[in-house]
């Protein structure tokens, strides 16, 4: 299932310094890489920008060439109805199967759907996918992100 549903996410290490976010996004814009989803994690001194983009290989290579430290990781995406309880049903399923969520972020798609992106520990990745499917929820295939 992993091969079918793993979405490549890029994590980029950033110092908390003026202009760094601008630099990253400029590199991507110039390479015509489209950002489909993003989240920014921060500590006091540094941050990690997490991106799902339409062309992860290209994004990674242009960012590395520009001197950024980039790590590629697998995440998965779940589509839920954009209504109260949508996020809850996914989290509940994962919690019931003892799957820790490292972090998650989300965006709204169209009028009535939300896409939730989850990062779980690598060794629980397969188990998480199975739990989602067994719970009757809809996993989003990576082509949804890459195709545009």
């Amino acid at each position: 299932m992993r091969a079918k549903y793993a979405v490549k996410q890029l994590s980029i290490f950033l110092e908390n310094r003026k202009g760094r976010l601008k630099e990253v996004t400029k590199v991507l814009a110039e390479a015509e890489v489209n950002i489909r989803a993003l989240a920014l994690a921060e500590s006091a001194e540094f941050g990690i920008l997490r991106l799902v983009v339409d062309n992860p290989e290209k994004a990674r290579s242009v960012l590395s060439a520009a001197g950024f430290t980039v790590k590629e990781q697998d995440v998965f995406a779940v589509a839920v109805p954009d209504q109260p309880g949508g996020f809850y049903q996914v989290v509940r399923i994962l919690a019931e199967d003892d799957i820790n969520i490292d972090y998650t972020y989300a965006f709204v798609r169209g009028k009535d759907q939300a896409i939730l992106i989850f990062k779980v520990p690598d060794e629980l990745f397969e188990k998480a996918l199975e739990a989602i499917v067994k719970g009757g929820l809809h996993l989003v295939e990576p082509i949804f992100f890459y195709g545009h």
Partner: protein
Amino acid sequence: MDWRKKDYLTREDMEALQQKRLQEVVQRVYHLVPFYKEKFDALGIKPEKIKSLEDLKHLPFTVKQDLRDHYPFGLFAVPLSQIVRIHSSSGTTGKPTVVGYTEHDLQVWTEVMCRSFAMAEVGPGDVVHNAYGYGLFTGGLGFHYGAEAVGAAVVPSSVGFTKRQLMLMKDFEATILCCTPSYALHLAEVAKEEGFDLQKDFRLRAGFFGAEPASEGLRKAVAEAWGIQYFEAYGLSEIIGPGVAASCPEGELHIFEDHFFPEIIHPETGEVLPEGEEGELVFTTLTKQGLPIIRYRTRDIASLYRAPCKCGRTIVRMGQVRGRSDDMLIVSGVNVFPSQVEHVLTQVEGLTPNYVIVVDKRGVLDVLEVWVEVDERVFTGDIGALENLKRKLEEELANALFLRARVKLVEPKTLERSMGKAKRVVDRRELEKNLK
């Protein structure tokens, strides 16, 4: 001879004394220390050939690594049965440097400390608050025995517990303060915070400050904050500890040259430089028995002046130490080598990341920062892992350096961009500015 007279010998008498002592020490090291015999033999030098002070330039240098290579007692010129005291550097990477003293050496040390204290006419009735570290470090005990010998009452407070130190200084009516210059200023600032009136609540009149480089600004700040006369104490454990040189009331740093013969050499060619020129300071111990050392390279950059001083002393003066000829840093009185930092980084992550050591002043205290590049080998994409790495590095650095270092994780190429590729150390303290 009364030690009080030694600072006032004519140049002729001094040189005659030095020459006689040099001949003796050369004989001693040749016959008693295999390391020197081998070195002299390799250069074809017989000890008898060294007749005058002028001949000293033919002898080989001794460097810190030689002491490490002969750890612990390999360079001692007497059997251990004659050694009565051993001091050592912390030696966190590789071997520490170990120094041993015979009873006679301790007498010499006490004498030069007496001559140092005589600069401020310290004696009976004075209370010497000694906040140098007691232990393997030579600072604490060196000042301690000197102060006792001149008849002062010594308070062996050692380092730390600043508020308690202030209480003791006030209640015991300390007149003389001994510590690093940055700690003297720190004491002053804490005293102000605690509501003390530095002039009224304390009886200090002078201080002996050393073990770290101090800028003109820092000296002035210490003297003004406490309203005291500032005396500099210069020394290094390989030569004896504190007491190699001390500044007089005129502010001139006098070397006790009847015991420690100084030369200034070109740091690269090793050639002896004429009086007044700046170069690396080199010492030959003329009277030490336990660990006599020939032409020890201090790595300190300074100059020498032999004209008599306004204070009346005739012994040679050295200019302010203007820097170090190698990469050793002194941070809050603690020696730090970039190799120690590198060692820790390698140990913790099993790799050698790109790093830069940044030394700066925060207020009056030195702060040490280690900037480590986060590259693909270290970065897992996880923020917790980075925070753990930072914490672990800080812990390990504190253990290895005996000093707190702040670790800052930075993006690759930041270091090259901001400081030039090969530079491993950036010293932003005033010393650095003075050198430029």
